[in-house]
């Protein structure tokens, strides 16, 4: 059997209401190969001990029971822990997070200690199940193309392009406008750099150009650029979006790049404090527009420079690692119904006529799992979130008793809803502890069979958390979830399961307060319905 190590971060267990982490750790001593409690994972001494343990004992899966996975990915240097563990020999897909802070300690102010302890234990057990079930992911190493695309025509775009060519990186500046757009004051400051840029051999200015398509991944994006009716394909290692305050541009770019934005139309930074130029899409940096009251040019220049650093950091690496997230199609199951082709928003599925089966182009695949759900024959699985893990977790969570509140399974999409729940916790909003979270890749990854399973297993309610309309990171995941749920409601009603017990929560990552309120209200409604019925 696979060797599993379980590491707790006690700081995460103290983030809000305290969880007795020593006792929690002792509960797992017999079920894993090593259990350790650290103050935090990223202290050099803890990290050294963790990696040494992994090497000495031949550990192949690691559970990090601490903060949200998003917390580590979206903090400057936060991904260092995962990188070091991977270097020690743990496959990236077998580094599994149990979110004891944002999903347990933080958002349940006033919950009894016993309830929180049970919840923390359940979340750790779900991670352990995941660690046993998941398979290692195949890594494709792609040498990044030392070419960058800068989208925009203002001062920020110009500064970014200037910096890039200065660092020896070939740049295309693409914009729908006919030329540079800036104020006279900006022009006065930037005049020398413009003339250098315009004559530079590494720079191509593509004004009056529309971006029609972007496919691929960080290090190798293929774009379709359209100019005066003619289109051409160009490939870039990284992309900088510097369209300033132009909300329409963000909307137009959404289907191509899926950069989140906040309600006021600003691009959503991965971390507003330390990673303000990192977008939610890997290999795409953003230059946020200046806020009201800020002096525009210095801020834009600084952010453009930071965005250039973000991209060159990627392009200077010898290779970038990508995970092949979807399994090979099982030809003995595939009946060539072509459902996968129809559901994929990224054109990643096609039929291999020679082999007589469907196939997936991993370069185009964004690992949303929509095709896994839609495939009527069960011919494929998502390696980064296998079906057996979801069904196992639902059964496991259904068996957890947390006080008298109605129990709710919250299937939260990794793109938006999971982040919204994180935001809720970080901003100090509360909801009942009987909401049990389960991270899924996308709303489109939610199989209607899993919803039925949750009700059958004893959940009082199910929430499916997805992106806001038009903001799905996988373009159609949200749409297909909606359509599936409309049909599912009939299957629930006919069986005597009140369709109101299933709720879709569409939400954006920054809407923490709304997320907490939606969850709390839903538990309240269920509670009312249940007491009214008895």
């Amino acid at each position, binding site marked *: 059997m696979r060797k599993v190590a379980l590491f707790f971060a006690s700081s995460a267990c103290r983030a809000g209401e305290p969880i007795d982490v020593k006792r929690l750790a002792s509960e797992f001593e017999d079920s894993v190969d090593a259990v350790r409690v650290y103050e935090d994972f990223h202290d050099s001494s803890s990290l050294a001990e963790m990696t040494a343990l992994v090497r000495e004992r031949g550990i192949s899966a690691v559970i990090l029971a601490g903060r949200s996975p998003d917390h580590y990915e979206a903090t400057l240097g936060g991904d260092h822990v995962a990188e070091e563990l991977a270097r020690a020999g743990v496959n990236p897909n077998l580094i599994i997070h149990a979110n004891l802070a944002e999903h347990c300690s933080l958002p349940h102010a006033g919950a009894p200690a016993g309830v929180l302890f049970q919840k923390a234990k359940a979340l750790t057990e779900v991670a352990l199940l995941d660690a046993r079930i998941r398979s290692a992911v195949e890594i494709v190493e792609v040498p990044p193309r030392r070419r960058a695309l800068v989208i925009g025509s203002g001062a920020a775009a110009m500064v970014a392009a200037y910096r890039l060519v200065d660092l020896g990186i070939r740049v295309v500046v693409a914009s729908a406008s006919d030329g540079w757009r800036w104020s006279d004051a900006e022009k006065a400051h930037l005049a020398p750099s413009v003339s250098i840029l315009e004559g530079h051999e590494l720079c191509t200015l593509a004004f009056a150009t529309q971006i029609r398509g972007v496919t691929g991944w960080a290090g190798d994006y293929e774009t379709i650029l359209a100019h005066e009716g003619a289109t051409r394909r160009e490939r870039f290692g990284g992309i900088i979006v510097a369209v300033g305050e132009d909300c329409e541009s963000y909307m137009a770019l959404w289907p191509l790049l899926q950069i989140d934005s906040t309600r006021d139309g600003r691009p959503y930074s991965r971390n507003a404090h330390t990673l303000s130029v990192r977008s939610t899409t890997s290999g795409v940096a953003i230059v946020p527009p200046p806020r009201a009251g800020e002096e525009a040019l210095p801020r834009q220049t600084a952010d453009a420079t930071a965005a250039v650093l973000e991209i060159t950091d990627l392009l200077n690496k010898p290779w970038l690692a990508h995970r092949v997230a979807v399994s090979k199609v099982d030809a*003995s*199951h*595939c*009946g*060539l*119904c*072509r*459902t996968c*082709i*129809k*559901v*994929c*928003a990224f*054109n990643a*599925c096609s039929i291999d006529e020679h082999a007589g089966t469907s196939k997936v182009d991993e370069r185009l695949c964004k690992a949303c799992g*929509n095709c896994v*759900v*839609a*495939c*009527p*024959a*069960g011919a494929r699985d998502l390696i980064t979130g296998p079906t057996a893990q979801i069904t196992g977790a639902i059964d496991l969570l259904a068996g957890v008793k947390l006080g008298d509140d109605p129990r709710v399974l919250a299937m939260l999409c990794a793109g938006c809803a999971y982040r919204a729940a994180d935001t809720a916790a970080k901003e100090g909003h509360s909801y009942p502890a009987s909401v049990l979270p389960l991270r899924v890749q996308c709303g489109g990854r939610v*199989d*209607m*069979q899993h*919803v*039925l*399973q949750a*009700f*059958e297993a004893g959940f009082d309610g199910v929430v499916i958390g997805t992106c806001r309309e038009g903001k799905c990171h996988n373009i*159609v995941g949200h749409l*297909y979830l909606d*359509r*599936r749920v*409309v*049909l*599912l409601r*009939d*299957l629930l009603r*006919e*069986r*005597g*399961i*009140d369709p109101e017990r299933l709720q879709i929560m569409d939400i954006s990552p920054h809407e923490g307060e709304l997320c907490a309120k939606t969850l709390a209200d839903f538990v309240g409604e269920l509670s009312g319905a249940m007491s009214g*019925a008895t």
Partner: protein
Amino acid sequence: MAKPKLATTWLTGCSGCHISLVDLDETLLDVVGQVEITACPPLTDVKEAPEVDVALVEGAVATEENEEVLRRLRERAGKLVALGTCACFGGIPGLRNLHPLAQALQRAYVDTESTVHGVLPCSEEIPRLQPFVRPIDEVVKVDGYIPGCPPTPKMLAQALAALLSGQELVWSRRNLCEECPREHRAMKTTDFEFISQNVSSVCELDEIDPKLCFLEQGVPCLGVATREGCEARCLAGNMPCRGCMGPTPDAKEQGAKWVNAVASLLPAGTLSFLDDVMGLGCRFALPASLSPHWVGKEDEK
């Protein structure tokens, strides 16, 4: 060498699977030559089969008598095989699971429009209905399955040949599209306008193209979420699949699995006219599904 002994029985079903056996035509003579048929409701009047090598069971378990007959046959049979969709998945009789038993009886014996002065049956001699219909593998161990409503004579001939030579019965694993002769056009590419702009529904079609995939024309077809093996004869006859072969191997619920797929395949207009998803998706396999029966309150239906 003695001929292997074969017994068949029927529980709650329609006898259609036995009729399909007779449809083997002259092949039946070969079968009769190879086996000794000890008990077979349409042919013999044997109440209880002796010990046999192979038993074929048609029908679902819906009454106390069904359960007893099945258990006794299991004790006497070397191999017991589920014959037809009712035995495999519950089938059409299983749709009663959507109603509390008392209401189903009330409807059937009293409330039906053609009934005058109806009464609920109360004789001690009539086997009592169990609360819910079950596939036979929820009651006894089953060694093989021959799905279909009814299974085609060809499937039966193959299954019998395998059983009599001591081989295991093999389930097919793919969905019916594998066998379906109809063409794909729109489904060859990703095109989201198809599902949002094309609002045609079956009631707006003047005619159904006999060569084109039903789903592409906006006609609900269960083929995508149905096991192959029947040779898609309905589809060749310009009738959409109703799903009688039961769910694909990895599916736990044929209706929900169908929903997963068709929500992204059928045009919006068709989806908005689908008013009986349960009847379409779970017609044949409800008792074998994830949530096999009514779970609400008695009086809410």
